[in-house]
């Protein structure tokens, strides 16, 4: 026991300063940022054709579809957008970065603490593990009043990862029903938003919002832990506010 405590002391503070400070490069590697056309470079037809998930249209990028495959980097794009860009509308088309559209933070009246129930409806595991890692020392979500719970009965937030399979439709509905109001649903990752790389596969739903109403969409494949933190803080109106760079 003392060995462990000594070890903890020796390692010092590992925890990020996010959301008081912007995410560092080690917390958000290049692919954590949203792809955007390089300044003054128009979106080329090659970029549109080359995107494997048809996220690029001539007039912009659908961040909800993007799986951060980096193919467009060769076509005049760069990973320079924001890390945290959760939106309240399905990002079929780009919205202003970081805006909660359609009003105030849905769980603002819960005050400073929320409990999160994580449900996997068909993920590759990367999303689950990124979400769970916000509880690890480097992110320590509990300092921000964010806790995981093992029962929907104690939850305020239903955090869904993965592309919904037919077999998970009913369980997801049950989980949603089991959570007492007020509650919020967060669709995390490209799969949960509209199927990600699996969009269009027979037997899969195109997004969680086909089954339960979604309050917040968190783009990324997977979204890095800071993006998950940002989304959860948005629900209670405590997210990092910064001028879009």
């Amino acid at each position: 026991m003392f060995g462990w405590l000594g070890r903890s002391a020796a390692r010092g503070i590992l925890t990020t300063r996010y959301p008081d400070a912007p995410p560092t490069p080690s917390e958000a590697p290049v692919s954590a940022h949203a792809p955007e056309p390089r300044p003054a470079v128009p979106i080329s037809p090659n970029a549109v054709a080359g995107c494997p998930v048809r996220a690029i249209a001539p007039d912009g990028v659908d961040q909800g579809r993007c799986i951060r495959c980096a193919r467009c980097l060769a076509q005049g794009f760069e990973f320079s957008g924001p890390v945290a860009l959760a939106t309240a509308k399905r990002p079929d088309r780009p919205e202003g970065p970081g805006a909660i559209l359609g009003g105030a933070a849905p769980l603002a009246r819960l005050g400073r603490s929320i409990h999160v129930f994580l449900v996997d409806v068909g993920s590759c595991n990367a999303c689950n593990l990124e979400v769970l890692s916000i509880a690890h020392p480097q992110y320590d979500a509990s300092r921000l009043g964010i806790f995981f719970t093992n029962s929907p009965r104690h939850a305020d937030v239903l955090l869904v990862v993965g592309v919904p399979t037919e077999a998970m439709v009913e369980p997801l509905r049950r989980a949603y029903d089991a959570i007492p109001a007020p509650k919020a649903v967060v669709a995390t990752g490209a799969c949960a938003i509209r199927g990600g790389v699996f969009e269009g596969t027979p037997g899969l739903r195109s997004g969680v919002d086909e089954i339960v109403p979604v309050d917040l969409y968190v783009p990324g494949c997977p979204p890095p832990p800071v993006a998950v933190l940002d989304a959860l803080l948005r629900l209670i109106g405590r997210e990092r506010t910064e001028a879009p760079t």
Partner: protein
Amino acid sequence: MSAPYLGILLTAAVVGLFASAPAAVLARRIGYGIALASSLLLLAVAIATLATGPVHGIAWTGPLGDPESLQLDGLSAFFALAASLVWTATSAYSIFYDDRRSPGLAVCYGLTLGAIALLVSASSFLLFLIGWEIMTLASYGMILQATGRGDRIFSAAFVFLAFGEASTLLVLIAVAAFHVLSGGFLEGPVSGAGALTSLVFVAALLGFGLKMGVAPFHLSEWLPIAHSSAPSNASAVLSSTLTLAGAYGLFRVVSDLGSPPAWWGGLMLAIGAISVLLGALFASVSEHTKGLPAYSTIENNGLILVALGVALLAEANGLTELAVFALFAAFFQAIAHAVAKTALFLSAGYVEHATGTFDLSAVAGGAKRSDPGETEGTLVAALSLAAAPPLAGFVSEWMILESLFQSYRFSSPEAQFLGLLAGAAVALAAGLIVVAMVKFVGFALLWKPSPGATAPRAAGLGTTVGAVGGILVGLGVGAPWILKGVAPGVAAFAHAAVTAPVSGLLAVPDGWSIVSGSPFGILSPPVVPIAIGLASVVAWGYFRLGGGRRTRTVEPWMAGSAPGRPGETYTSFGYSTGIRIMLRSILRTREVRASVGPVTEAGLATPVPYNVDLEVLDVFKLFYDDLVAATAAVSDAFKVAIMPGRLGRYLAYILLVTLAVVVYVAVAA
């Protein structure tokens, strides 16, 4: 001081109970009706007795030349009160329930009730013994009326009879020894710690303990009920009032013996504590809708012994206040248990009626219960047995624990230590019995009805059981006044004027609180429901004023699976398997597996299906089984050695005996 007509009414009640037996031959319902009326009469007389003083019925001269009569004093009136409460409920219930059995049940039922009424109101031990024996034989008859496998019923009834007669034998010894001491039958007190006095005490403790089903005789309680699946009204009478009769006998004898040595109380306390623990433990793992309440009876009667034991120990230590408080606890425990247990048995009978099973894990998919009051009454009774406030069982459990807490006042370290151990046992049992009652309520009461099935409607049943629940609430909330009411009983026991441990403290009006000793604990039973009521009003008001809040009904959360699919719900058995495994050394838990179906290829092929049974065992049953086997072996050996069936040998025996008589006569002369 009592009015003479009370004596006549008492006689009428006893006679009426007996008379219900022959009436039942004509028509069962008439018999039960007479029993109901007589029980109500006895109830009234008992209450009047507690209020006004001893009652004497018609007197006559007994075969031994003693004056005999039916009478009630404070002590017997209290037990008559408890018993008649139970009988009122069971008789009312029987009018509706006993529609499938032979009149034999109703006849034996009436005889049992009459016999208990007789022994409670007997003025002498002779009359008491007559009542006692009729009671034993008539209840034996009731058990024989059970439905089910004949051999099982017969052996269960036989066990009952064997234990019953052993009990009579011990009681006879106690009575005879008492007679030698005092020359009388019910007169006391006989004081002194002589060997004969102790013989009276030990024989009475064992004899009446046998009837109360305390350890190590608890087999006599659960086995006849669980193995014979005795009819419900019979089970209720057996478990609630036969044991009450045992308790009465014990109270009566002990009250006739003055200045008890400390070891009497210690012995009683030890037997009581062991019974409490065993009863609660086996109740928590029992799977039988009637066996479970029967085990709980063992626990409750153990509690009576614990309280009585503390009272005797306190008296031996000169702690009058504690002794009286513990006595009150014993009295209250007796009535709280008798009433609550009745509801449980009646409910179990209803479950059998509706689902055709006694197995808690098999009770499922029956019909929706449709008798208003029945569910509520049973729930209240189970809560009372689990000692939940503000019910009667809570008050008595509190009082018993309070008296045990004060065992530090005893002078000898042994007695202190015993009090400590008993306290631990009672507390542990209190936890186990909660498991048992949750099982009973959860699986015998709240089963999920399968759509379409209709429950047999037993008119009046709901009212009866509901009324029992109401009585339990009344007993619990009104505990201080009840204690005042039973003070004559305690006084008759203690041969002194006693005041009930009732007072007013901490801004609670005088007479509203029970005080366990000065200085010690205090409880105000009426304040508990008032507080609960106030809190409910506040919550209700908040809810109403909150406006627009609606109740949302959601299905239970089963990790995302559809809840309640057949075969996927927790069974009553599974609920208590934790205890079976944890306490396997006491319960002798044993798993028996037998493969069923063909043995197929190993590996990934479908493994062999098997049948599994997790059995528990009452070690005492093993002991009795061994005893039976040993007795049989000895008598066999005796038969072979002495009675080989040869005429010559027998002639030789006769010759030898004749010679011996001749020699004896010659020498004596």
